[in-house]
């Protein structure tokens, strides 16, 4: 089996046909790795994962998952392709209970659903504890765990995450990122967008830097973390951005 789970070539996409946000992005994501996408605001990081998830129309280029072309996929067919997408912020159904959120995610699991539900409760004990509470009552960190649990419900081989640490306390953010890291041990591939550059680079295997809708730089996370230029622009900029 090819070691590359996700391959994007010359991706051009945007909300309006003649105003592309991504102007030809290439990317290759290795199996069972954590790949992080960073870049300044407006670089097109979120647009890239949304395009992969089929939420932003692809106007040119190819996206392949395990060798199968998925460019322009209908978002409700992602799970069938073994892909899960965790949106930024509003990523759980607040008006449903935790149990109902998970049941919804497990809707197509058939006879396997009960076993998988138990598995998810075991993995995320706080969710089991509050299973009959409305999801809207969860704390920020717990919401992210619920969102991850919903993503895992379909047994994906690839999980796309859009800023999972946004709005979380540093401690909760660290927990969520570590949880994502832990998933790779089971062969799951993680592609995530992060503002939290330093934290994300420490945890990731590989990193893509986007700027103005194009690839700017990519390399192993460790290399980029020690790269003085990257350090100055992104790690420095991040400090300013956090103020």
């Amino acid at each position, binding site marked *: 089996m090819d070691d590359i789970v996700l391959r994007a070539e010359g991706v051009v996409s945007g909300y309006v046909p003649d105003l592309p946000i991504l102007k030809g992005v290439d990317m290759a994501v290795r199996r069972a790795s954590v790949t992080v996408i960073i870049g300044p605001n407006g670089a097109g990081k979120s647009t890239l994962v949304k395009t992969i*998830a089929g*939420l932003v129309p692809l106007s040119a280029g190819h996206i392949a998952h395990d060798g199968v072309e998925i460019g322009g996929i*209908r*978002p*409700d067919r*992602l*799970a*069938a392709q073994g892909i*899960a*997408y965790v*949106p930024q912020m*509003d*990523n*759980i*159904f*607040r*008006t*449903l209970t935790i149990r*109902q*959120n998970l*049941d*919804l*995610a*497990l*809707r*197509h699991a058939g006879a396997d659903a009960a076993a998988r539900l138990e598995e998810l409760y075991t993995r995320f004990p706080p969710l089991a504890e509050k299973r009959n509470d409305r999801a809207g009552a969860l704390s920020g960190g717990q919401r992210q765990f619920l969102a991850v649990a*919903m993503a895992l419900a*379909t047994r994906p081989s690839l999980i796309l995450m859009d800023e999972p640490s946004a709005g979380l306390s540093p401690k909760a953010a660290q927990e969520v990122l570590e949880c994502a890291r832990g998933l790779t041990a089971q062969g799951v591939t993680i592609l995530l967008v992060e503002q939290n550059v330093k934290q994300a680079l420490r945890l990731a295997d590989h990193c893509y830097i986007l700027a103005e809708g194009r690839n700017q730089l990519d390399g192993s996370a460790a290399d980029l973390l020690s790269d003085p230029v990257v350090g100055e622009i992104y790690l420095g900029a991040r400090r300013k951005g956090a103020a």
Partner: protein
Amino acid sequence: MIQNLADGILVGSVLSLGAIGLTLVMHMLRFANFSHAELLSIGAYAALVFDGVFAAILPPLADRIGPLSMTWALVLALVVAVAVTGASALVIDRLVFRRVRAKGSELSMVFASFGVAMIVRNVTGLVFGLGTQLYSKDIVFAVVVSRDPMLLIKPDQVFVLVATLLVMVALHLVLSRTTLGFALRAVAENPVLAQVNGVNLARMIALVWVVGGGLAAIAGVFYGLTNQISPMIGRDLVLPVFAATIVGGIGSVYGAALGGFIVGIAANVALAVLPSGYSPSVPFLIILAVLLVRPNGLFGEARA
């Protein structure tokens, strides 16, 4: 007064069924559908037609059920009317709303719904005539429940109320116990997230139209059973049904159910004070009162 209250509860059950469908559509497709009340009219007339058909095919079906004016033929016709009206809602969506949705704003949809209401109402008038009709010409006498205060209730009214409550319980069970119900609520809350969780949006929208149309058909038949059938059912009910959804909060099924009863009761109790000519104004006063006191309704959430 107590009579007004009883009548209000009855009207309320019709409004509730209409409002539940409307609130689902308004919440999910995000537009005020001024043609929803016409679905009640479609349902009422569909049942009228099939009531005649079934009674003609199998005359014993035309016998009344117990003390009701309702016949078995009408029960069967109601089932068919639910299907016909659900299908009509779906067809109207395919022909008009889905296409306008694809190119226009939500407010274009509101306007398209005005056009649809106009067409449906007047086509109904052309086909069935402008006069009023009844399911049964037999006169069913009201039962005197109490003489002081005077309270008269017809068996049909009791049936309508009980049947409405049963429909609501069934809907509640679907929404709170089945993954299909979760999917519906999920789409209502966050369509994009629902999609990435494997929910087929187009199918859910179709389902909402069918459910909304089906409930409207039941409401229309109940209205015809306790009042009369005319092409103006839609015109007369559109504002009360909107009032019920606003009282309950747009998007809240439980709010719409309760809102229907509140509007029905308020409109009838108000008649104890106001001259009866003013009854068409009452729903608007209720809307104004809600907007003043609690703009998002009893159960609604603020949302853009």
